[in-house]
């Protein structure tokens, strides 16, 4: 009996001793603070996380294109009621996608991840000698850029938004909206600061980023990251949205003068529209792009323009979610000799680069069609096109726009003609012209200069999430459409804030137009 009691006491004591150990189980599903911000790999995972969140924010519910191309744009929707509502600017309609797109949470995830990165990255620098100062400087510049980009995106969508530049871990105080214009000033200064530090390219021995970036060769980073040219290009967009066209001309000039240093170039019409062309994979010419890289198994069923626009006969889907009606195609592609879409006087199209199945009920907008790895197999609707936020053609046209507004007509026409040279180089049946001659800008044929520039932007950047913002800038300049001008004045150009966001933060008020 005594023995038993003694034995059991020993047993209990042993068991108690092993208690603490047994209860310390490190999760294999998440990483806690203790095990993060220690090594260079943590820094890499952190910065890639900010990129990943940015890509997710743009791709979510195809938001980048619904905000940019679908809203009051030239597209029509055959059966999707939610997209019809967006086309009509009916943005409080009771549809899940519309509701999700009026929620800004995913953009604030970028901001929060960036804030945490900026606050904590010095710990990696302190703990891991492999993480050198230059690596940290370049990382910080990219993250600052991405945070500014998220704010830029939000201000364009919602106008005034809460302005938060620290992570405030653990005490998430509700914040009221801040003036969108002030936020844009911040965005501009952040991007400008980043632009100073960023290299033209990574792992190529750039003076601002010597050596292998994260021990990977340049082929890994081609176009995947924010570079100096990316920062200046977005600065041009930020300035244009603010109406600071003088700044636009400065930033675009920098881009025009230096793009070759970043191995960036123009794309001919063939490369622009082919399945494995500009939009496929990561490329330096995607000045700011967030890629779904086929080789990295990133291909996705949704989160791309293709899942909205493509249908029979390009892929095996009966009806497209959105399409261009024949009327709007004819209204947009009025000029002859256009290699993107070419229609002869009898109404027969000779180029299917932008539009497939023009004769059918639903012409398919097929400019971007990166199916699988850029194959022509229509049977599996997985796409790997990169979200291209801006490219050289965009910046060139933005320069033309700025110069036109500033009254530098010659420079504007010259910039516009750079693009026209690339696109208006076929004859009336779509064959390439001899010697690559092209139709230069001609006021009689193409209309007033500012109109021609915006028309060119519409054609060139169709399906790249730019149209809505172009319309806003155009109307700010021209004030030609009274309905649209009313929207400019009463805040109707902004999206409503999601009910779920308003419900959790009492300091917010609904945007005035949607009250």
């Amino acid at each position, binding site marked *: 009996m005594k023995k*038993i009691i003694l034995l059991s006491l020993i047993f209990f004591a042993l068991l108690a001793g092993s208690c603490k150990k*047994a*209860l310390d*189980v*490190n*999760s*294999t*599903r*998440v990483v*806690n*603070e203790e095990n993060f911000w220690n090594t260079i790999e943590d820094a890499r*995972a*952190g910065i*890639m*996380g900010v*990129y*990943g*969140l940015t*890509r*997710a924010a743009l791709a*979510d*519910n195809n938001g980048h294109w619904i905000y940019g191309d679908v809203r009051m744009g030239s597209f029509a929707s*055959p*059966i*999707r009621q939610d997209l019809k509502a967006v086309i009509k600017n009916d943005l*409080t*309609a*009771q549809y899940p996608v519309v509701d999700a797109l009026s929620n*800004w*949470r*995913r953009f604030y*995830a*970028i901001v*929060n991840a960036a804030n*945490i990165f900026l606050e904590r990255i010095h710990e990696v620098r302190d703990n891991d000698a492999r993480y050198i100062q230059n690596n940290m400087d370049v990382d910080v510049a990219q993250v600052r850029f991405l945070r500014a980009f998220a704010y830029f995106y939000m201000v364009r969508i919602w106008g005034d938004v809460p302005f*938060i530049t620290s992570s405030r*871990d*653990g005490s*998430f105080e*509700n914040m009221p909206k801040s003036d969108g214009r002030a936020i844009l000033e911040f965005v501009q200064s952040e991007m400008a600061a980043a632009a100073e530090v960023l290299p033209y390219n990574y792992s190529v021995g750039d003076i601002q980023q010597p050596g292998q970036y994260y021990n990977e060769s340049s082929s*890994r*980073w081609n176009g995947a990251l924010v570079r100096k040219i990316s920062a200046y290009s977005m600065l041009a967009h930020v300035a244009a949205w603010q109406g600071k066209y003088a700044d636009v001309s400065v930033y675009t000039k920098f881009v025009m003068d230096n793009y070759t240093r970043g191995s960036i170039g123009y794309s001919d019409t063939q490369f622009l529209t082919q399945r494995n062309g500009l939009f496929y994979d*990561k490329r330096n010419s995607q000045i700011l792009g967030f*890629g779904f890289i086929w080789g*990295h*198994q990133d*291909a*996705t069923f*949704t*989160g791309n323009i293709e899942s909205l626009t493509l249908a029979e006969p390009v892929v*095996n889907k009966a009806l497209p979610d959105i399409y261009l009606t024949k009327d709007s195609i004819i209204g947009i592609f009025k000029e002859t000799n256009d290699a993107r879409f070419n229609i002869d006087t009898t109404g027969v199209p000779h180029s299917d680069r932008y539009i497939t199945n023009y004769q059918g*009920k639903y012409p398919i907008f097929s400019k971007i069609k990166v199916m*699988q790895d850029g194959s022509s197999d229509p*049977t599996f609707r997985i796409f790997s096109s990169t979200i291209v936020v801006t490219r050289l053609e965009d910046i060139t046209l933005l320069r033309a726009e700025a110069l036109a507004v500033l009254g530098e007509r010659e420079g504007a026409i010259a910039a516009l003609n750079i693009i026209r040279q690339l696109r208006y180089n076929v004859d009336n049946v779509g064959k390439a012209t001899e010697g690559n001659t092209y139709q230069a800008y001609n006021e009689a044929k193409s209309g007033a200069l500012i109109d021609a520039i915006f028309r060119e932007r519409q054609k060139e950047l169709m399906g790249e999430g730019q149209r809505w913002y172009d319309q806003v800038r155009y109307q700010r300049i021209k004030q030609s459409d009274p309905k649209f001008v009313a929207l400019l004045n009463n805040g109707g150009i902004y999206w409503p804030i999601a*009910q*779920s966001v308003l*419900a*959790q933060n009492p300091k917010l008020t609904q945007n005035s137009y*949607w*009250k």
Partner: protein
Amino acid sequence: MRIIATMTFLGVLCTTTCSFGNTARSACVSNNFSMKGSFQQQTDTSKKDTASTDTSAVGIKPIKKTITHRLESKGNSLDPKKLSIFPAVTLQQALKGESAGVYVQEPTGEPGTAQNIFIHGTSQPLLTARELFQSQPLIILDGVPLTSEHPYALDIQQYKFERIGPGTNPLSIINMDNLQSVEVLKDLSAIAAYGPKGANGVILLTTKAATSKRTITFDSYVGMATKTGVTTINGQFENNFRRQFYDKYTGNGSYTGNDVYPLYLSDSLNNAYYGPANWNDLYYKNGMVYGVNASIAGGTDRANFRFSLGSLKNEGVADETGVERYNTRFVINMKPITWLNFSAMVNGSIVDRDRNRNVRDRLTQVNYIPDLSSPVASNKEKYGQYLGEFEKGFDNNKTNSIQGYLKIGLTFDNFNWITTAGADYNEGYRDIFFPRTLLQTTNYASNYFSTSQRAFVDNVASYDWEIDDDSKFNFQAGLSAQYDSYKYQYAYAYKGANDFIKLNLLYSDPNKTSGSEEYLTPSVFRRELVFKYLDKTKNNLLSANVRATYSFKDKYTFSLMLRGDGSSTQQPTSRWFYSPIFSAAWDMKKEFFEDDATISTLNLRGSAGRMGRHESFDNYAQGPQYTAFAGFTGNLISPGYNGIATMTRPYSTGGVGYDLDWAYTDQANIGLDASLFNNRVNGSLDIYMKEDKNMLLGVPSASEYGYSAIIKNGMAIRNSGVDLTLSGVILPAEKTVSWTSSLNINYNRNELTALPGGLSELAIGDRLLRVGEAVDRYWVLNNTGIYNTDDEVPSVGGQKLSYNGIDLKAGDPIWTDLNNDNIIDNHDRVLQGHALPVVSGGFNNDFSYKKWTLGLNFYYNLGRQLMNQEMANRFDFVNREGLNNINSVREITFWEKRGDYSKYNLYNPWSSVAPYQVNQDIFVEDAAFVKLRTLSLGYDLTDIVKKNSPNVKRIYVYASVNNVFTLTKYTGQDPELVDYTGYDTGYGIQIPRTYLLGVKMDF
């Protein structure tokens, strides 16, 4: 030791292969097999304890309930013999309606699928599978706490209708024929011994003990599950239905210039849709059910064993679903010296399941949405071709599981010690190949393997101390450790080279380290289209408890337990949770009616206390954290950025801080057990209040910091109510006709008593949690009619009544503007209905006449409402077909006429206010019902057979009909066929009416 084991095993082999001769021991006491008086058996646990002790000289009983038995409810025990008459595949089916306070959900008649048990209501708002998992009771099989399917795998699923893997109900391994007793522990004094995992209640399963007397049993039943007739419809019907809307709201058959009428309804000559709607011939079929069980027990008074085998097959009536189970169990007891007992048990099962072929469930798995513009054809010929395509592939679902323990028991006079070491190990497989023809020319292969395992050590010591005849003490101490681990390996691939190679083959030449045939890269499927996932989660739980019980004159009993529980899923600063549980009992029979023969038992008892609630997810313990998730809607799992892993805060699942603590349950109950008139009337009444407090909830907040929610402590939910079990022998057994009737009833009131941070209400998705209301309510708009013209829409100051800012027009519903702000929005929604019943239970009657027995079991739910989403979907065809997503799927049952079409106004389905959104009161329906669940007729043949073969101790034959009829006002399918959310999506497969013939024999 080994010799004894070997000999015993050989003994088993011999006896099973030899004939059933050997009459020497036929003088065994009959095990009192009877359909009669089941309530006495149900209620009198103490009696059963002594009875089973008699039959086995060795074997370890749970620590004897010496003086504590008065503290326990008598309304808990169920009679497994009776339950085994029902052809149940799962434990849940067997328990349905059998015990007051136990509510079982059977959302589909597909055999072997998941079912839910709620004991005394839900402790969680049932928003997702995660909360469902945390509200389920703990099942203990012979001291082995069973694991279940951890819902962490859902984290990688875009569509969460079905968890990846075999999806087989973990409790389909329980063979009711092996069970000696089933006890449902509901009050804290009883569940406290099982620790934090039992906070939602405990179901104790005790298998039949080994006996020293040689016994052989054989049971079998065979039967047929029969389909219920349905009304089918074809394209013509659907077309006519839709024409009403086109006629009313469009001029030319098209709402806007650019929409299109669905192709499948456009061609009235298309036989696939406009031909006879006879798909049901292929979909609904009668199914076979059978079960066979045999066991043998025997040994000496120093060593004995029981060995049993069982097999079961249960076919559903729809879509060729079915389940097969094989199980075996072996238990051995040894008593080498008088004070030492060894006992070992192994229970193994294999469950094979044939799943349904729903499009939705298939796409949930495939994670790719093909073009869904045309549904499956309603015509048999076309539908048959479609079904034929499944033959080219496979969908294998298998679960293997094994439970075992080794117990050592020491007994010295008043001192008892039991150490149990055991494990529960389950593995699940699902292997799939879907040929090209099923997915728009893309084929699909996937392989899944998972394990759920729990190892545990449990020590209990008990000491009885009698000071004198009046004062008795019992001291108990327990110490246990549980180690849980769950993991899975999962891979799927699209677009294999052809339909003949159905596996994801890899190149196998280790010398090729690069190039097109690189070692271990896939050869049939493209590398870029092969997706692989691994995940695992572990948690450990340590518990210690001490309990002292004091009894005075056998009249008053008091007991106090102190617990300490440490869990690895709690944050390091708050790993341990300490709590007391107090219980008391007063034997009023002894106090007042010692000599009164009419009152056989009258016992008042009560308990109050607190216990921790176990957290199954390991991430909360980590505090602020980083995850690899950086996906988005439609692509939850992005494999990183630019081929490099990402680490970000858990923005989409919810932020975690350093301040999380244990959730716990506070419970109190008072119960009265009474037996009157020589046990002719038995009753057990329990009034309970349980409040689960400080529970975690993802509170939607911090949107401006990127989070969808912040996980916070502080949610409290109270369930209070009454359990009543009442039975009476209306005609006693001595009469030629005897009649026993028993009723069990539970009334449960659920109330949310607190939200984190003192919030008074919180909207999560389309649910509203409001303090003071139940958590299972629907949040709906009041719909009172239709605006026939634009002028009927009221306006204030020239501003028309709007829905979220969109002016209402002709064809929109008249929604009540409750707060009169001229806008219909969430503020105009009200809480209505209950997804879980307010009152539920069963009503059982047993009659006997000579050797005949007749049983009638009723099951009922009252005060329960359903959301008829199936009808809402049917009317909302414009939106559902407009999107090509998982919600646009129409199954073959789209061609079945369900529900009452005339109940609903013809709103404008194109309106952007979504007139047919499901969350409005027109779709809330009363789903109360009464079912005759079992009607059985039996005959005891023992005396007749005994004349010829004296070996037979008992032989009983029976016939039964199950699921005989349902009385309900619900207009959809069977009101039972709804999942935990209460939204009837129409996916439930009929629970069939089953006809059975069975026999039970003992030798």
